[in-house]
């Protein structure tokens, strides 16, 4: 059975990828999951300097979903390189690193530092962050800022470059053309959905920032539609994600044309989820008498 997939010049031994922010820096989840069985791991979003994140509460569970307002807490790129890279060096899987910044310069600086590290296979840009220099609007919602950001990071690194899209896009066609022109090599679709909860007893928002990101089974059909639409819009390979809990969920994304799948919130529910999903995909291929996973991809259009 051939499970390997290609995303442009990137080959993964199978399509199952751990999504950013749900598997830490790798070491934390390793006791419960053999990372070497997976296609790739995406290290949680790194910034140039350590970032302490949002005050609690940071999580709230809703029906079949989870809202989070972690606020991008991370130890910063330097400490990551010192403390976590040695563990990742020894892995036999692709290592993707998600990066973010408050300014274009910060993104570029992080990308440069990681560009020098041979073990890192790809950078995933979180472009949903507020652009501090432009009054805090998300890079993703400002086409010119997005163009500058992706273009500048592209100049700074020769690594495989993935851009992670959020569900709030100004104009999909315009956004996708910018990403193609500026040298993005793959898209991660999608990030969590902006959402809200109100505490009726306290008559106030649950989260200090008012809104938070919704993930989990509740968003899966929405994410699937996004992936389907974007597959029809661009030749860039897409890593589909959003509420994938089971092999069947993952297969839906592959069938509509995602070339890999990200497992996120499921890792929190059970850290072995990604391995179970991979086993389920294999069982499906066997049952369907299919030798090659590529034969699945994009079969349902």
């Amino acid at each position: 059975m051939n499970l390997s997939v290609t995303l442009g010049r990137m080959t993964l031994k199978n399509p199952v990828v751990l999504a950013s922010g749900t598997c830490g820096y790798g070491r934390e989840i390793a006791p419960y999951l053999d990372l070497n069985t997976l296609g790739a791991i995406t290290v949680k979003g790194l910034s140039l300097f350590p970032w302490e994140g949002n005050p609690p509460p940071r999580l709230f569970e809703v029906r079949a979903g989870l809202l989070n307002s972690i606020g991008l807490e991370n130890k910063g790129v330097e400490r990551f390189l010192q403390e976590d890279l040695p563990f990742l060096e020894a892995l036999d899987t692709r290592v993707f690193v998600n990066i973010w910044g408050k300014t274009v310069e910060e993104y570029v600086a992080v990308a440069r530092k990681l560009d020098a590290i041979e073990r890192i296979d790809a950078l995933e840009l979180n472009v949903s962050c507020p652009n501090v220099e432009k009054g805090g609007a998300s890079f993703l919602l400002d086409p010119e800022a997005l163009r500058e950001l992706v273009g500048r990071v592209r100049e700074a690194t020769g690594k495989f470059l993935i851009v992670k899209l959020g569900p709030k896009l100004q104009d999909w066609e315009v956004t996708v053309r910018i990403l193609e022109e500026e040298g993005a090599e793959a898209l991660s679709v999608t990030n969590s959905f902006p959402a809200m909860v109100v505490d009726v007893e306290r008559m106030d928002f649950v989260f200090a920032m008012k809104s938070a990101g919704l993930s989990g089974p509740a968003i899966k059909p929405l994410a699937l539609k996004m992936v389907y639409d974007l597959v029809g819009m661009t030749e860039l390979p897409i890593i589909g994600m959003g509420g994938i809990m089971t092999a069947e969920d993952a297969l839906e994304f592959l069938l509509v044309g995602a070339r890999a799948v990200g497992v996120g919130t499921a890792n929190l529910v059970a850290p072995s989820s990604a391995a179970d999903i991979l086993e389920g995909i294999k069982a499906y291929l066997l049952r369907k008498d299919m030798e090659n996973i590529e034969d699945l991809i994009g079969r349902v259009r």
Partner: protein
Amino acid sequence: MSFARICRKERFGERFVCFELEEGDIASQARPGQFVMVRPGFRVFDPLLPRPFAVLSANDDRFSLLFEVVGKGTELLSYLEVGDVVEVLGPLGRGFSLDAPFGILLAGGRGLVPLVFLAREFEKRGIPFSFFLGVRKRKDLALLRLLEDLPRVLWSCEEAVSGGFCGTVLDLVGKCLERALWQGARIYACGPEGMLRELVTVFPGKEEDIEVALEARMGCGFGVCLGCAIPRRGGGYWHVCSDGPVFRLSEVVL
């Protein structure tokens, strides 16, 4: 995660449920103050996340948990019966220190769970201790069954009970523990946040030597989601699941 069969179920009062579970790895490794993540074994995705529970006891191939029904997740778990299976992950987190010269154990409500485990461990090690339990409602006194064979147990209830001390566990401690009695002891506490916040007034100058087991809404339980942040003394955050759940009172801002 592994699957564990419920081999005994017991109710305490109206809101507390105790499960004894068959799972050898957790039973042999768990230490007082550690916790496990639990979800029903039939893989529902609503409720979505597993729930964190402190370990009540562990020996050989079985361990037990006791939880209070407080919401949808705990309610669903409370419907499970002997023979049903749950999915468990653990033991997780940093437990209590076990080298105290003398222990004072202070429990508020369901906060008694990790402290009962600690008391049993102290008995094994020959470390002397006193156990104080405070409950809100008369019916919660059913929890005293867990402490029946322990020496030096004192309790209080916020509802009037004949022959019982009326007030919180810290009111009780204030009445019967003089400074000379707690000065050389290590204090271990678990209970509502208001109770833990008050400890510093009841035991002035003792913050370094008070260990508190904290409760938090958690995502993963093993340090990847960073959802269970609490303010750290001196700035930044701790994560209850991986840095705790046991902290020295001097390390946290409650």
